[in-house]
């Protein structure tokens, strides 16, 4: 693991941010705790996706498969009487197994086939959750034991839990960023064949990254399930979310440590604004946001340099290697 001053500063900044977030829980009211929890949840999903999508450059659109699997695994375990915290670990384990199961066949595919296979996994899982009544409660949904305590306490508890998970996701990203593993993933993004030629066990690396993503995603899902105490298939396996997550990371900057955070936060703010003022047009405006991000910020906020900002915006075609090397590996 390579630690230089810039990296140490980044980590210190991240830790400081999370510490501030944790301390804020003492003063925030219930609405802001709710927003904060959602934010922490989306950020940990973004960080999880960033490992496969950003560092490795694979167009994985199955983030919500992991999330939903985690939600259902945790939910079913809790409904069967497993204590809450243990259920989260169970869900993470299930996420690991599921990522292996999905990753081993799918990671042999490239480009579009991989993308479509991962989207299809969301559809298949939603149908299974819908139809397997005995296990998942079917379309009616699954009720979980409600966390005891006053609304304020419960809100604070889940806020801290989600924040803790986001912190773990942040640390994992930071470690991946500076170890041989992350270096290998970047090589795979740039040129898979060359990576295997310099002695990287490409398949193992890819499955490893997929598993990391899966475990983090499933744990997020499990905490979410305990928080809302009720899950249903169309909520747990939401096809829009599975594309929103990559958009958030793209907005912030793919394959960076803080990109997912910046992207997640700005996307949530934009979305809240759209929901509050344009309720009838929200999906259209979200689409507009997506399109705008792709045309004007293809390298993300962190990919911008001062020169880009002052130059004409539309002309800034992948000035930084972040997307251009993904382009090469995908084409």
């Amino acid at each position, binding site marked *: 693991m390579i630690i230089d001053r810039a990296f140490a500063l980044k980590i210190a900044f991240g830790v400081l941010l999370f510490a501030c977030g944790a301390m804020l829980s003492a003063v925030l009211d219930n609405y802001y705790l709710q927003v904060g929890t959602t934010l922490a949840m989306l950020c940990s999903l973004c960080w999880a996706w960033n490992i496969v999508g950003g560092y490795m450059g694979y167009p994985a659109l199955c983030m919500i498969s992991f999330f939903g699997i985690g939600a259902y695994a945790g939910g079913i375990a809790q409904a069967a009487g497993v204590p809450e915290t243990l259920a989260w670990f169970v869900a993470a384990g299930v996420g690991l197994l599921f990522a292996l199961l999905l990753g081993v066949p799918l990671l042999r595919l490239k480009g579009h086939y991989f*993308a479509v296979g991962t989207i299809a996994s969301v*559809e298949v899982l939603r*149908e299974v959750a819908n139809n397997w009544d005995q296990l998942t409660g079917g379309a009616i949904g699954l009720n979980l034991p409600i966390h005891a305590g006053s609304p304020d306490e419960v809100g604070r508890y889940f806020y801290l839990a989600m924040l803790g998970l986001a912190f773990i996701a942040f640390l994992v990203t930071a470690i991946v960023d500076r170890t041989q593993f992350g270096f290998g993933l970047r090589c795979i993004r740039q040129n898979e064949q060359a990576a295997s030629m310099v002695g990287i066990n490409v398949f193992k690396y890819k499955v490893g990254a997929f598993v990391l993503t899966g475990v983090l995603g499933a744990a997020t899902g499990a905490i979410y399930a305990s928080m809302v105490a009720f899950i249903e298939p169309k909520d747990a396996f939401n096809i829009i979310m599975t594309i929103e997550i990559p958009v958030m990371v793209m907005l912030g900057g793919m394959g960076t440590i803080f990109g997912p955070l910046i992207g997640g936060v700005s996307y949530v703010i934009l979305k809240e604004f759209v929901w509050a003022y344009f309720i009838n047009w929200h999906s*259209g405006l979200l689409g507009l946001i997506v399109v705008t991000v792709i045309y004007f910020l293809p390298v993300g906020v962190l990919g911008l340099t001062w020169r880009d900002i002052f130059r004409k915006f539309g002309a800034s075609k992948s000035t930084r290697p972040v997307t251009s090397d993904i*382009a090469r*590996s995908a*084409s």
Partner: protein
Amino acid sequence: MISQYIVNGLLTGGLYACLAVGFSLVWGVLNVVNMLHGSMVVLGAYFCLYGVQQLGLPLYAVAPVACLILFVFGYAIQRGLLNRVITQPILITLTLTFGLDLIVNNLIIHVFSATPQSLVTNFGTVEFAGVRVPVVRVGGMLVAVILTLVLYWLLRHSKIGRAIIAVRMDRHAAALMGIRIPHIYALTFGIGAFMAGAAGCAMALIYPVTPMMSGVFLGKAFVICVLGGLGSVPGAIIGGLVLGVVEGLGTLTLGQQWATSVGFIMMMAVIVLFPTGIMGKKGYE
């Protein structure tokens, strides 16, 4: 009983072929997964409904116009928006078309409302060897299949068709031969939209249509395209028929609620086992 299900499956399959062929062509030639496809089908259906119900025009006049409008729409989208990012990685193009899909779908809901609508037609039914089928479904399926075959013929024998195939085989070489790549890309996308519109018109005759169905249509297109192989017109026909029959039999044996999942599970299996589709070779038509 089984023969009834198979015939129904084949009839639906013909529609599916028409639904998927445009999607498959765009994917194969442009290397773009067009998430907008489902909404274009819905748009075609609504244009058809609007012309027949609100303007009182006959169906055979409305349907071609609806398809042509979609062609223009598709051409414009590709020429104006997608051509700018066509060389970017698939995550970018896929997300872009997804964003466009959200916008178009929202517009459809706003203009046409989200209430299910359908064309009420009564052409009677025909009965053959104990199998009953409504004439309208046979008609819709025939039109869909004929259009698909016409597209196949065009790709093989017309100048534009050969240009599309050439671009698909090697973009750079095609450009050196004097083919205008942006124009051909836009035409291909336009043809995809045209076929989506045709499928939409046929759908409006048979099922009640709502804007929410765009996801369902898109899912079918995915499955068929993977089954039949990318950009292959015969593949789309075979994939469509296979999916129709498999769904019919799935309904019969497992029950209605599993019908869609059977398709997706089949697709996952094919994608892992034969990534180039049942039709094998990376087709050149």
